[in-house]
């Protein structure tokens, strides 16, 4: 049955540790590069880079770009591009700001701070983003205008539609509940963070176990038990470690005192409180999980990758590639709206230049994360890691005191070199 000569299937040879664990070497490489980057910055800044405080800030600064980058993966995998994400974010942000600060209070008598305001605002933003995305997708898919042109036009159009909606004014402050999605103003505290971490860890273990059982049911070979245990341990360790770091960043005493004062209470002596997991980061994690499930476990995802690999084959296999294009761009629109919630909440108001140049950051994140512009290849976790690398570079250089122009030069170089390394890697492993 296993006729090696004929099939190219190698005879059972000693397998390396990475093979046995069935780890993705590309992911390992990226994580390795990221760790080297962080450690280097930490050394250069005398340990100021890898503090809980800086890690906390890094994660909340990454969220907005990372959320959009997960959608950009689908667009690029499908051989398109979306240059309009930053502008779309601005239009969504403008709509949500207008809804919560003027439309709802003026016409529906809802005051800022009301319980429903953030829901209505966020939902409307998502509808706006989804519709604009679908419109662009329709132009690309059904009218066959190249995505580059449609979204280049979109970049000019949506940024300035946003401008007209607000008359170019900065709109704020936003609704207090809405602002909890921004990061520092909405964190879960130590207890809830531990609970969520434990839940996630338990789910990882369950998923590994389920996967093993499914494979056994079909009689496929499975990893040795110790390998599964090792993987489970790594996953649980990473999750709990991340939570531990966020939980060790404590809210400054002055800020706590102000919070107590606002409630008309006296702060007890020696009282401390940890920030814990920011809601915005939790949002990113949820988006990442949902997008990964779409990519790997749904027909939609399968068709996106098939179309990217060979559009004709997808068509001949009965995939409605035009409708698929609409769905992808609509999905990106929705993600832009979610990013708009996070970005405007973080800035505590809507300003005209919100999301400027984000399209380039988002594309760079996806590409650094291993998404191939030739289509068919890309991962969600890669794009998020790419966003994290970009943000770390930027913050790290700012911390070291690198001039702003030089920062951009370095980021540009890193983008080009990252893609070069990726090309060389793929040539080596033969999946070019």
């Amino acid at each position, binding site marked *: 049955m296993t006729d090696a000569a004929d*099939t190219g299937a190698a005879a059972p040879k000693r397998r390396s540790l990475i093979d046995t664990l069935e780890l993705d070497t590309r992911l390992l490489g990226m994580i390795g590069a990221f760790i080297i980057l962080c450690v280097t910055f930490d050394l250069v800044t005398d340990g100021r880079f890898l503090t809980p405080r800086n890690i906390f800030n890094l994660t909340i600064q990454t969220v907005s770009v990372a959320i959009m980058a997960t959608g950009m993966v689908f667009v690029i995998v499908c051989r398109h591009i979306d240059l309009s994400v930053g502008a779309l974010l601005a239009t969504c942000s403008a709509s949500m700001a207008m809804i919560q600060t003027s439309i709802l209070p003026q016409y529906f008598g809802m005051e800022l701070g009301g319980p429903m305001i953030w829901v209505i605002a966020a939902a409307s933003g998502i509808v706006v983003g989804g519709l604009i995305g679908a419109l662009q997708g329709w132009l690309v898919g059904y009218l066959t205008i190249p995505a580059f042109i449609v979204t280049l036009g979109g970049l000019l159009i949506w940024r300035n539609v946003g401008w007209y909606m607000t008359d170019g004014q900065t709109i704020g402050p936003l609704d207090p509940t809405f602002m909890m999605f921004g990061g520092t103003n909405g964190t879960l505290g130590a207890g809830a963070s531990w609970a969520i971490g434990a839940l996630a860890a338990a789910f990882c273990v369950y998923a590994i176990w389920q996967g093993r059982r499914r494979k056994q049911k079909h009689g496929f070979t499975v990893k040795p038990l110790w390998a599964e245990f090792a993987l489970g341990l790594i996953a649980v360790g990473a999750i709990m470690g991340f939570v531990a770091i966020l939980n060790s960043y404590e809210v400054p005493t002055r800020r706590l005192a102000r919070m107590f004062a606002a409630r008309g209470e006296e702060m007890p002596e020696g009282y401390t409180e940890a920030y814990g997991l920011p809601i915005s980061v939790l949002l990113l994690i949820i988006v990442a999980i949902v997008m990964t499930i779409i990519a790997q476990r749904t027909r939609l995802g*399968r068709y996106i990758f098939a179309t990217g690999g*060979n559009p004709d*084959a997808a068509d*001949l296999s009965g995939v409605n590639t035009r409708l698929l294009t609409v769905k992808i761009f609509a999905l990106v629109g929705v993600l832009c709206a979610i990013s708009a919630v996070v970005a405007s909440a973080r800035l505590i108001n809507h300003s005209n230049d919100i999301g400027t140049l984000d399209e380039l950051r988002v594309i760079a994140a996806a590409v650094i994360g291993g998404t191939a512009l030739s289509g068919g290849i890309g991962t969600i976790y890669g794009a998020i890691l790419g966003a994290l690398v970009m943000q770390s570079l930027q913050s790290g250089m700012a911390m070291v005191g690198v001039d702003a122009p030089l920062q951009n030069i370095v980021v540009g170089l890193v983008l080009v070199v990252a893609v070069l390394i990726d090309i060389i890697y793929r040539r080596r492993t033969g999946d070019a």
Partner: protein
Amino acid sequence: MTPLVEMLDISIAFGGVKAVDNVSVDLHAGEVVGLLGHNGAGKSTLIKILSGAYPKDSGEIRINGEAVEIHNPRDARALNIETIYQTLALADNLDAASNLFLGRELTTAFGFVDDDAMEAETRKIMGRLNPNFQKFKDPVKALSGGQRQSVAIARAVYFNAKILIMDEPTAALGPQETKMVAELIGELKKQGIGIFLISHDIHDVMDLCDRVSVMKNGQLVGTEKVEDVTDDEILAMIILGKRPERT
């Protein structure tokens, strides 16, 4: 008996080129009809109209005597028409199972694609078609031409086709695999499936087919029963566009 498939007066032009010009062919259940012709004669284009890849300019398609409209590949699949394309139409970045089930994924109770179940099914059918095939985990771009062709054949026969279109299905296959495809064609024929077989190998065609239709420059030269014609007469039809003389 009503034919399984009738393609009547089919025409299609690309720009100024009449790729298929007023061609009529038919196919009965349990029959293999060979389509022959020089390169660019219009064979692939004709069957792509049946498989929904191209919209016809004019003409009519009947299945079991009933006129049908085939606007896209989904319509064709719904009519149990399966196709092995000359270009294979595989997504190179996906593995064999994903390609085999592309557009018709097996799903779990929750509606998620069930990769393990699809791989298990793929192993079963490949075991029958090409027992040497072992590369189930690799993207199909890592496969040899013949292995890729096996995947395309497996995809066409897995889904209980009633009408099977094979556009040069053995062009890249080794002798052993070609023999297995020949056996497969015989088996499918017995099950009452109608097969259009496009091939440049006249011996193959004479062995496997019941009738042959010959095309030249987009037009139909003629359709003959294989037992009524010699190899040379077929060659004359292909090269000269000349129908054999009947007494």
